């Protein structure tokens, strides 16, 4: 008999089909996968990690160490799913994992028979010879044998969402203590959130057969839930695991919306919540623990409370002849409920001898221990310490309770041992957390309700809620009495960690070898490292350690509980920030225009910039880029440079401020002029460069490089707020507010004259190189015009408010047709700046000084500016320092490679002879050969010298000539023309 005819929280009218290892079964609505499997008489569901021993369903909750299955198929498959936590759905597909051969005949079981050679940490002592065998032979074998379930190797097809919630009181766990606390709090009007990992709220009361207020406890749950549901200040969250407690009252929770693959493509599969609470109550109950005896890992051996809950909540009887093994009163409750359900209870074995049986009419054996269980794939009999053998196909084990106190430890609270109830209880929980009920070591319902009342009253008052109405509860007083751990460790193969196969022998060996601190023991034996993170094994392991070391449990202590409480999918932590949504796109104001001009885009930080604009007939990117360069240099080109950082600086002390943040002088910059500025970091290294324009006495506009737009602004804010707080300076980033275009080439002035409003004179006399002005263009559009040049041509940059950008760029390209205006992208921009020897990101890499860049003379010795003193340190000013220079291949047909290193001719290419490196290269269509910029020792004194540019990554050596960095128009006549 597996399923009883009535009772429980399942809907027998709603059948659900599911499969396990290819066989089809039927369960009911309200089942978990494990209750449905047990309801079909299935116990064997998996294999253990190391010895591949058969594993059955051990528990009925999230602590399950054994019943891990591979859920769903193909790209939806998910490994290591605890069958005890999956709400059954129609069409569920599950498979067992970690075996070679079939589940019932696993070849890897051979490890079990060789276990004497595979003791704790054996792998640290062998596999060292021959040396090459580790990566080639031993490690692959170990890797293949290890691990549990499988990933699909395909992209996770499901969606995950994230959300934030805020509340006065967070109730963690919706069992009796949680619901009762929630009710008291809810009636005060406090904003509360109740979370519980189960898909039905009610906790243990869903599986108990006890009366409260003269009704069955599950009815009491229903009545409380109906009141809570009616209140607007309450949010009830089932299937939501509070996985972690973090600083400042922030909690992480995972809501499982569905495991069913069909539901998770358009709707989120899980939601990751961050809950900000003023206070929290931890009502997470307690987990039962097992008892140590030989072969205590066999399928059919289950936790007693779980057996009871399978019977009461799901109407499943997990065996035909069930025995119970206990050391406390709770085991007897299981016997009582099973008997009531009509199950054959063989007998109850209680380790305690001096007790009066709490329940009558049950065959019992007092004062005895089980020494061994027998069976192959399922328990068949047990042997007592008096030699008696009892046949049984299911053994319910109750070794006492461990409070679920993990969340009290996430901020390093350390539990202490309670000598009465023989369990660790919370100690030093976070300041805004209170622990109530079984989670606090109170295993008696009456005490638990009283505990809730007293603590909630105090918490609510402190939160400012005064009107507190307490619901009365009448519950029969249940005694909980437990015997301490036995003083003798049994012999034989006794499992402490069911999943990782850690046995009592392993613990003994580890202690013998010196690994007796709990943390070392854990690391050496892997005790508690399994997917249950020691929920089942820790305290049992510590009990063995305390016996061996002859120390109290308190002295032994626990390892540190760390988040998450139960494992959380990586996909849920990532949410929607994946694929193209990993980071937001920043689009330039001319993006749509560039797109319509066939632009190829490139990522520049979060920006997408036009890289080049291919036209019909061009087969390679080089053809496009060469054309853009040539056409710009011969006629005129336009490039969107909005991505460069723009910072508006206003205030009486703006000039002084610029003097302070730039290495070169800015205070004397006349109104209507632009100046190139070099910024140093506080450690004296070159930080960023750009231009700053002065529009009025107290108004400057700074530009930064695209890459450093954010960091420069942050740096300026730091300088203003922390270093010069008294100065009248106001900063605002206007990068996104002004669309800026470079218009470069000999015909740029003519083109601009056509769009500038009539009164504006931009002739070379009135608007020379490095001039700036606020103007209007295209009949009144406000604009800022700068006569600056990155390309080396006669060039301007013009900025218009972003909202006019699309119109502006369309209009100017229309007008520009007669001047053969060409749009150019970042590649052409890069080529032209290399031809001109301008430093950019590859040169300003945070490791180079003004001295290296050849800009040493710019650094003001007089002003007190950021970085100038530090830049004077000896090591940064050595005679043989690296200098930024240009390079030309001797054989002009050769292409230079950025990242090559320079070695003097005739010398061996090694670190000692390393003279510098090539930072940027380009093919110059103007010179018709490859050119490069790079740093080489004393480079500025070595023009004309030939050295080797070596690229050992590709075994290439290229002879290059050291050249001035200015390849094109070195005198700068064009840009002034």
């Amino acid at each position: 008999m597996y399923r009883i005819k009535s009772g429980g929280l399942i809907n027998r009218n709603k059948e659900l089909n599911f499969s396990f290892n290819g066989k089809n079964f039927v369960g009911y609505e309200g089942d978990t996968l494990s209750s449905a499997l047990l309801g079909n008489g299935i116990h064997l569901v998996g294999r253990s990690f190391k010895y591949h021993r058969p594993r059955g369903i051990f528990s009925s909750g999230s602590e399950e160490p054994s019943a891990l299955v591979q859920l769903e198929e193909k790209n939806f498959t998910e490994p290591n799913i605890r069958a005890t936590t999956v709400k059954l759905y129609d069409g569920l597909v599950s498979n067992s994992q970690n075996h070679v051969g079939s589940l019932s005949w696993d070849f890897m079981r051979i490890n079990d028979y060789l276990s004497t050679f595979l003791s704790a940490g054996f792998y640290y002592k062998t596999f060292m010879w021959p040396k090459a065998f580790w990566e080639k032979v031993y490690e692959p074998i170990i890797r293949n044998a290890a691990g549990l379930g499988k990933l699909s190797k395909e992209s996770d097809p499901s969606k995950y969402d994230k959300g934030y919630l805020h509340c006065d009181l967070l109730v963690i766990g919706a069992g009796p203590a949680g619901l009762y606390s929630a009710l008291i709090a809810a009636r005060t009007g406090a904003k509360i959130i109740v979370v519980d990992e189960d898909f039905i709220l009610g906790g243990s009361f869903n599986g108990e057969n006890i009366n409260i207020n003269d009704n069955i406890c599950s009815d009491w749950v229903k009545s409380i839930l109906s009141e809570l549901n009616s209140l607007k200040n309450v949010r009830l969250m089932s299937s939501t695991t509070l996985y972690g407690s973090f600083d400042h009252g922030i909690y992480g929770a995972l809501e499982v919306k569905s495991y069913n693959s069909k539901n998770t493509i358009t709707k989120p599969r899980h939601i990751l919540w961050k809950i900000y609470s003023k206070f929290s109550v931890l009502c997470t109950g307690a987990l039962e623990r097992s008892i140590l005896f030989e072969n205590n890992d066999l399928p059919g051996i289950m936790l007693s409370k779980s057996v009871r809950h399978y019977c009461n909540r799901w109407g499943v009887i997990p065996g035909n002849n069930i025995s119970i093994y206990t050391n406390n009163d709770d085991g007897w409750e299981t016997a009582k409920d099973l008997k009531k359900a009509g199950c054959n209870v063989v007998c109850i074995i209680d380790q305690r001898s001096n007790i009066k049986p709490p329940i009558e009419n049950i065959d019992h054996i007092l004062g005895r221990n089980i020494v061994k269980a027998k069976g192959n794939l399922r328990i068949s009999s047990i042997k007592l310490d008096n030699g008696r053998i009892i046949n049984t196909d299911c053994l319910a084990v109750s070794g006492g309770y461990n409070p679920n106190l993990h969340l009290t430890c996430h901020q390093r609270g350390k539990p202490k041992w309670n000598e009465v109830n023989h369990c660790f209880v919370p100690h030093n929980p976070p300041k805004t957390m209170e622990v109530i009920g079984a989670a606090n070591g109170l295993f008696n319902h009456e005490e638990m309700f009283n505990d809730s009342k007293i603590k909630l009253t105090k918490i609510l008052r402190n939160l400012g809620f005064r009107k507190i109405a307490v619901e009365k509860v009448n519950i029969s007083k249940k005694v909980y009495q437990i015997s301490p751990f036995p003083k003798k460790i049994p012999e034989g193969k006794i499992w402490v960690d069911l999943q990782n196969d850690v046995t009592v022998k392993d613990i003994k060996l580890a202690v013998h070898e010196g690994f007796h601190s709990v943390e070392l023991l854990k690391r050496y034996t892997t005790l508690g490292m399994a997917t249950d993170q020691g929920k089942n094994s820790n305290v049992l392991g510590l009990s063995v350690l305390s016996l061996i070391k002859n120390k109290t449990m308190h002295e032994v202590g626990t390892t540190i509980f760390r988040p998450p409480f139960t494992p959380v999918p990586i996909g849920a932590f990532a949410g929607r920030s994946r694929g193209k949504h990993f980071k937001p796109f920043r689009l330039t104001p001319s993006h749509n225009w560039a797109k319509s001009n066939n632009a190829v885009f490139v990522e520049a930080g979060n920006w997408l910039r036009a890289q080049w604009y291919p036209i019909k007939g061009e087969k390679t990117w080089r053809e496009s880029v060469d054309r853009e360069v040539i056409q710009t240099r011969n006629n005129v080109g336009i490039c969107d440079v909005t991505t460069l950082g723009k910072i508006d600086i206003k205030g009486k002390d703006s000039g002084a401020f610029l003097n302070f943040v730039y290495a070169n002088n800015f205070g004397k910059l006349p109104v209507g002029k632009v100046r190139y500025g070099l910024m140093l970091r506080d450690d004296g290294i070159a930080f960023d460069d750009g231009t700053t324009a002065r529009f009025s006495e107290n108004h400057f506009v700074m530009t930064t490089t695209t890459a450093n737009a954010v960091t420069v602004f942050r740096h300026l804010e730091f300088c203003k707020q922390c270093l010069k707080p008294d100065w009248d300076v106001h900063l605002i980033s206007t990068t996104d507010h002004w669309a800026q275009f470079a218009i470069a080439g000999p015909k740029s002035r003519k083109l601009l004259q056509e769009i500038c409003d009539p009164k504006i004179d931009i002739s070379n006399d009135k608007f020379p190189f490095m001039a700036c002005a606020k103007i209007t263009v295209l009949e009144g559009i406000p604009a800022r015009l700068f006569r600056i040049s990155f390309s080396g041509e006669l060039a301007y940059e013009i900025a218009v408010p972003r909202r006019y950008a699309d119109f502006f760029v369309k209009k100017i390209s229309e007008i520009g047709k007669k001047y053969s205006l060409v749009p150019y992208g970042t590649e052409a921009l890069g080529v032209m700046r290399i031809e001109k020897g301008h430093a950019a990101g590859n040169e300003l890499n945070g490791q180079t000084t003004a001295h290296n860049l050849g800009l040493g003379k710019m650094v003001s010795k007089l002003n007190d500016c950021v970085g100038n003193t530090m830049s004077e340190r000896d090591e940064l000013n050595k005679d043989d320092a690296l200098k930024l220079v240009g390079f030309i291949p001797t054989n002009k047909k050769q292409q230079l490679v950025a990242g090559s290193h320079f070695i003097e001719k005739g010398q061996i290419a090694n670190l000692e002879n390393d003279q510098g490196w090539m930072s940027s290269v380009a093919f110059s269509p103007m010179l018709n050969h490859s050119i490069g910029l790079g740093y080489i020792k004393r480079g500025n004194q070595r023009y004309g010298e030939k050295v080797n540019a070596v690229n050992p990554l590709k075994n290439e050596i290229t002879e290059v000539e050291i050249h001035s960095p200015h390849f094109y128009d070195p005198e700068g006549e064009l840009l002034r023309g």
Partner: protein
Amino acid sequence: MNYSGLKIFWEGLTGNKGWNKVWKEPTPKKEYDIIIIGGGGHGLSTAYYLSNKFNVNNVAVLEKGWLGSGNIGRNTTIIRSNYLLPENQPFYEFSLKLWENLENDTNYNSMVSQRGVLNLFHSDGQRDAFVRRGNSMILSGADANLLNDVELKELCPYLDFENARFPIKGALLQKRGGTVRHDAVAWGYARGADAKGVDIIQNCEVDGFIIKNGKCIGVETNKGVIKAKKIASCVAGSSGKLMSKAGIRLPIESHVLQAFVSEGLKPILDNVITFGAGHFYVSQSDKGGLVFGGDIDGYNSYAQRGNLPVVEDVCEGGMAIMPMIGRARLLRMWGGIMDMSMDGSPFIDKTHIKGLYFNGGWCYGGFKATPASGYCYAHLLAKDEPHPVAEDYKLDRFLKGKIIDEKGQGAQPNLH
């Protein structure tokens, strides 16, 4: 006792009763030649090389908690020597060479697994920087390969080549890089040092230094005063707290770095992979867990725990390059305390107090440095001269401007 397969076989047959303690647990002597404060990876490797390579055996390692309880017990286990700067590259290459022979040296299988470290690049500029770095590596005797996207796809077909926000264009591969079973490193070194007579003393916290006439002659501990000719601090994230007891202020801030492990999975990742457009690095342990990490939390802290923003950032980075891991579940997260220096590079140096030595500032790259750090510190302690590959790791380098800023981030510890 020599460890071997044969020994395991024999012990298996005879009930595993003949194994010795891996290290003894002596009570501290009154005086030693050298006291090493800190029984973590670097402290134990220092003790190991002092006793095994420099014949200095009258040494104690004082550990305030349990052996290996610092960052050697919580890290992402990556070893590599793919450094750029000439002050760093030879040091880390020396370290990698020591790793390669570690099992033979210590007769302890710390599972040095040279499975290859791949640094992905996503832009032309990043490729140029990796070419420069790869060439630096080869010039100083290390190995490096530059893979284009086709070659990378063959090696790691699961990377998101189609849909990535930042296209994966290739990778710098160091084949000799890989992973190590981190705890075993501490145990192997401890066993090797213990065998040569080093006293490893756990649960022994240093409360203060005994300094007379500008010379450090011993330490005060919870187990009493212990004297020594030389005192060597080696306490990573606790460096600031410890050295302040000697009145020394360090160019170091302490920051939290989190590390993560997933549930056990059948083999799926054969290499170490690092993301170039976000902060994420990952490998799969021999046990099957994905071991991964990312950026530091960013605020100063001595608490060995982190917070959610970085957890999310790291997982987003993971999903961005390998979206197959979405259904792998994060099992455990740790926080360790990093000794972040002002330029991102470490110190192995004397202090201005005679007899007091300092090793620290490893930022969050200390694990891979463990053997060389110990070796070079042992060299300094034994000979009072820096080892050639560590001679630039000086405390006064900021004064001279000989900064070693691998990332070019400047004097802001939380950016390295």
